[in-house]
């Protein structure tokens, strides 16, 4: 019977858990830093703020995808098949922000 076979529970992988806690700390510190930027850098420096926020968001996304979602430890082909199509997002961002400026110029 199935339930008579003893289940072989392996010991906790301490290095792995340590790595997860380290990533948690990074995510926490980066988010606190974003808050600090939001309330110290004045709104007049709009593009400086946007640049810092986007850069830090990409760092957070890297840690979540690479370590939590384990993508950093998968085969190269899998990494590429997920990351490469995301270039379309950059393209859409590029054309629609141009379009936004065109609409703004036409209306105001």
């Amino acid at each position: 019977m199935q339930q008579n076979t003893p289940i072989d529970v392996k010991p906790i992988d301490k290095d792995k858990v340590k790595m997860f806690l380290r990533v948690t700390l990074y995510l926490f510190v980066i988010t606190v830093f974003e808050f600090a930027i939001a309330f110290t850098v004045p709104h007049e420096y709009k593009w400086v703020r946007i640049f810092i926020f986007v850069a830090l968001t990409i760092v957070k996304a890297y840690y979540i995808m690479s370590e939590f979602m384990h993508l950093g430890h998968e085969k190269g082909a899998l990494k590429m098949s997920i990351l490469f199509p995301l270039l379309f997002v950059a393209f859409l961002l590029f054309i629609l922000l141009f379009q936004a400026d065109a609409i703004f110029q036409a209306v105001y």
Partner: protein
Amino acid sequence: MSSTAIEIEDKKDLWGGGVSPMNVSYGKLMMWFFLLSDAFTFSALLITYGLIRFSHPAFDGAIDDFVFSQEYWPVPEVVFEAVPFLHGVHLPLIFVGLMTFVLILSSVTMVLAVEAGERMDRKGVEKWMLWTLLGGIAFLSCQAWEWSHFITGTDMGSKLLDGSIFHGANLTMNEYGPPNFAALFFFITGFHGFHVFSGVMLNFMVFFQAVTGKLERTGHYEMIEKVGLYWHFVDLVWVFVFTFFYLV
């Protein structure tokens, strides 16, 4: 010649053809491709937010002089400044920051559940999945409060273009700024919130399967990994929503 032990370890990863493309199981690869398509959907929504925001004038005075108006796009930190039980206290972005930490922490407990599953540790899986479920439910409750506050509006309300005073928001009118601001708020955070809701349902499903011993009888906890991928994706999207809707 591969040993028997390795063959058993790898068996769950083999596809119908007896191989394992890119060294992942069929289910995991398809979850990745689903998440990729979902990433496109969320990208389109957030980029649309950018398109509509930058086709409206921005508020260009000092932040202390900011008042709600239909003439320009609102500054998010002035709109989202309420915290439950602290009515009238100006606490910009504090509540949404709390929600961010709740979701990140539930992502951490999920990754610990996956780790326990890899070790066939049923008790560990049950414990960490329960924490993950609590985190998801806490996030949804926070969002319900956030929505009801946004819909109810502030005590003062604000003057619309036709001169009438309006409190709160719906899909066509809002006191905070141009009508599209509230529509985008409902659409983007609502679509994300629905993903969180589906994630909680999936988490409960695998929690149930772990508790009843179904996953143990299957011989592996891969279901936890697949649902875990989805749950981390929900967290990943929130990181972007947080930046583009609340910070920028």
